């Protein structure tokens, strides 16, 4: 969970009352800062010139990877979502039991 700890570390560097919006903007700046430098040719180096195409694509690759990851996670969670049929059955039984016991104790149920 490196990414999570890194995120928490970045958050702890900032003011405790910083909102999520501000943290995300901060993270975006960290990721997009270098990207902008490459895009606007601010940073000159042979390595950067050679790999310019790849470097310019990396934020989009991150977003795409995150998108794929999200779809997989959500799909898995929907698939493994517990259907609590026994809970529904148990509730039905207990409703009957409750009504009988309450009627004995003098509760008047209204017929609807």
């Amino acid at each position, binding site marked *: 969970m490196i990414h999570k700890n890194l995120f928490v570390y970045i958050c702890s560097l900032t003011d405790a009352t910083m*909102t999520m919006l501000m943290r995300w903007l901060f993270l975006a700046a960290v990721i997009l800062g270098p990207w902008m430098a490459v895009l606007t040719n601010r940073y000159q180096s042979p390595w950067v010139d050679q790999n310019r195409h790849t470097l310019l694509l990396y934020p989009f690759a991150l977003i795409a990877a995150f998108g794929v990851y999200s779809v997989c996670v959500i799909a898995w969670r929907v698939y493994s*979502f517990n*259907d*609590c049929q026994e*809970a*529904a059955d148990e509730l039905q039984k*207990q409703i009957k039991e409750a009504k009988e016991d309450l009627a004995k104790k*003098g*509760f008047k149920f209204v017929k609807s």
Partner: protein
Amino acid sequence: MGEDDAMYTVLLPTYNERENLPIIVWLLVKYFTDAKVEFEIIVIDDGSPDGTLEAAEQLQRIYGEERIVLRPRAKKLGLGTAYIHGLKHARGQFIIIMDADLSHHPKFIPRMIALQQRDNLDIVTGTRYSGDGGVSGWDLRRKLISRGANYLTQVLLQPGASDVTGSFRLYRRDVLRRLVDSCVSKGYVFQMEMIVRATRLGYRIGEVPISFVDRVYGESKLGGSEIVNFTKGLLYLFATT
């Protein structure tokens, strides 16, 4: 007074729950009595036209005014104010909030109490999304929307709990008070705001998997306006917490 003598207050806001109220009260009495724990149930009825208050009065006669406390209001005034209203006369050191429509089952309350005591927690929240928690009565569409919305909430808000819209929770009394005073949203976004602010304030939060029995899904519940409200609430919390 040690933790063993702690008293638990259940806040039960009701609106048109004439049929369900006797059952939920019966179940609460059963599980609290089995757990040998001091409790009271505060029924906050918002002027239900179906006779919910009359049912509550009958229950009060059966179980006693110490156990069943009535704090009715004239009309539907919202959840946050219902909690504040109920808190005013609550005698418990711990407050349990839950739905009165039988979607939340009191059998999970002893587990919440035990977890709270074991880990000295400020809040214990029921979760439908982790452990063996789950839901009965939801179709694929509902599950997809629910999981999708929850995932988005986790990513954007880092809320510190797996189920943020759930309303089956146990709070330390002063924690609930402080949170209710600082939350402004309505409906289930209110529940989201409560847990997010609790995490931001550093409160200790634990979770108990619960089974949620949805018997009203057939009628409305998740249309376009609900989704719009959720998104607005999410963005609001994103920008302010």
